[in-house]
């Protein structure tokens, strides 16, 4: 088991954002977290990444209590693409992407040629090589998202967490990025775990192995896209009527309103 969540809860003030969630993530899974706004998707990602500490319950990463991991060890195992962070305007895109090598470097160690090749490859994969002379303050929201993805890829960690990685992208970039995430995931040949919080149910259905449907801080349904994205589940949790059809090519569910 790569990630093991045991009965975790998280309170923000007196509000229960996450309520007694138990879930396991196995090697090779690409999992989407879906659900209405405020259902706890982002919070769960932050709990797994160690940004937040659970109010109760335990999180194990590779059988080690997450709480006890050093930041460095956690960063070797987990990379994260946050949603809309404030980024320093003055840093160039290659310098930013290079920061992903930090977990692999000692205090007095600087990036080797190999590290630069890895960063360069991530920039090519995310198709931001044309930004090599630009600074973070000079690029669009979608380019920033791709730069953050490039940084996470550069980290070369088996676990990748992504919070709405396509929120600032147009439809063609959305599909490209999701396909890229899928490709990176598959390159880890069955060892990696990729978890993404995502709004778009159809993208989730098409590209995930497994979907967790969130409702008010709990997991309402957990399974393959077909098992989770049923008319009943969606109507009861999102509160709007939908029709489900089957994708003619992929056989995955497609939700239309």
């Amino acid at each position, binding site marked *: 088991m790569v990630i093991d969540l045991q009965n975790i809860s998280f309170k923000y003030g007196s509000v229960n954002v996450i309520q007694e969630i138990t879930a396991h993530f196995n090697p090779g899974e690409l999992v989407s977290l879906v659900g209405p706004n405020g259902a706890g998707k982002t919070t769960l990602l*932050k709990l797994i*990444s*160690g*940004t937040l500490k659970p109010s109760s319950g335990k999180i194990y990463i590779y059988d080690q209590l997450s709480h006890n991991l*050093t*930041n*460095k*060890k*956690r*960063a*070797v195992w*987990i*990379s*994260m693409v*946050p949603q809309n*962070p*404030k*980024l*320093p*305007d*003055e*840093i*160039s895109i*290659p*310098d930013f*992407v*290079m*920061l*992903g090598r*930090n*977990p692999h*470097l000692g*205090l*007095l160690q*600087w*990036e080797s*040629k190999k590290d*630069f090749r890895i*960063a*360069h490859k991530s*920039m*090519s994969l995310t*198709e931001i*090589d*044309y930004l*090599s002379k630009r600074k973070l*303050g000079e690029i669009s929201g979608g380019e920033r998202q791709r730069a953050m993805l490039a940084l996470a890829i550069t*980290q070369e960690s088996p676990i990748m967490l992504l919070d709405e990685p396509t929120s600032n992208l147009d439809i*063609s*970039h959305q599909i*490209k990025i999701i396909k890229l995430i899928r490709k990176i995931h598959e390159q880890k040949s069955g060892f990696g775990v990729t978890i993404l919080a995502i709004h778009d149910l159809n993208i989730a259905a098409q590209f995930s192995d497994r979907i967790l449907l969130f409702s008010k801080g709990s997991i309402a349904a957990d399974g393959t896209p077909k098992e989770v994205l049923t008319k009943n589940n969606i109507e009861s949790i999102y509160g709007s009527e939908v029709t489900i059809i089957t994708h003619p090519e992929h056989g995955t569910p497609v939700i239309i309103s």
Partner: protein
Amino acid sequence: MKSTTNTNDQDLVLPYKYPWNKITIGIIIIFICAVIGVAVGSVYIPVTSVLLILLSKLNLFNGSIELTPAWHTIIWNIRFPRVVLALLVGASLGISGATYQGLFKNPLADPYLIGVASGASLGATIIFLSGIPFTYGYFSLLPIASFCGGIVAVFIAYLISIKSNNTHLSTLLLAGLAIGAFATAITGILMLRSDPDLRPLLSWLMGGFIRAQWSHSILIMPYIIIGVSFILGYSRILNTMQLEEYYAESLGVNTEKTKRILIVSATLVTAAAVSFSGLIGFVGLIAPHIIRLLWGTDYRTLLPLSGLMGAAFLILADLAARTIVSPIELPVGIITALVGSPFFVYVLLKTKGSTVDGY
């Protein structure tokens, strides 16, 4: 998004190169500034004589030097110690300024403006007036007392800027202003209550190198070396600290430890600078900003070059301070403020609208 076939594929992500050539050029410029600084003054001494004395002191020249003893005294006992102290203090302020700016993600964080220097000078004043003998051979309590004062000031300023929950640029500066004013007021009270005979000795508080001696440079050297070593050691980590804290942590950085080490180191370096030269503002603002404009924000480049820039700037500022209205000497802090305040306004206007995280 068309996949671009770039002919310069290998050049996209260039390996980082330490700026050895820029550092070398910087050292040469500082050397030239220093020689000019020694040569020029109320009595002009030819550059060749300055160089000859320097060479003979370094045992590189054994010929006889035709110098009057007065010239020798002026060069070796008055001007050289002064220029060397200005060099050390300028380098210290440049490096610590760049460090504070990186830590606080605030391009305006100067050791003087965030109250560290005032706190440090209060610490030094207390020791000075306490009557405790503070110099023992090559050890002095002054830098240590300055450090204590400085560290208290920076932590208060930092806590205020966190507590106010306001990440805007100005919070830290306003907190620093308040703490600086408070520390300066206490220093003033202590001075006025002190033995009138001691007061002239406190003139260093005004910021300047009038009383500079060789021993001053030797006394502050260890603290500068220790502090600067830690800062340069953490220079790559300081790059990751430009991200939001949780993001830096997700890249494996122990942000709390890094902040503690860097605040202590930068304050140690600032305190060493303040303890014999008093309050000199804006060097820590001007030097890093110019380097950043020219060569970007990588702290591995920014920190050493800011130090060199600060050193060259302060040697020249001191030269101006003692020659502009000669024979009267201005405190060097007046010169740095003259240059620095417009610069401050310029940086302020340039960063207007952007947040603290712009750096």
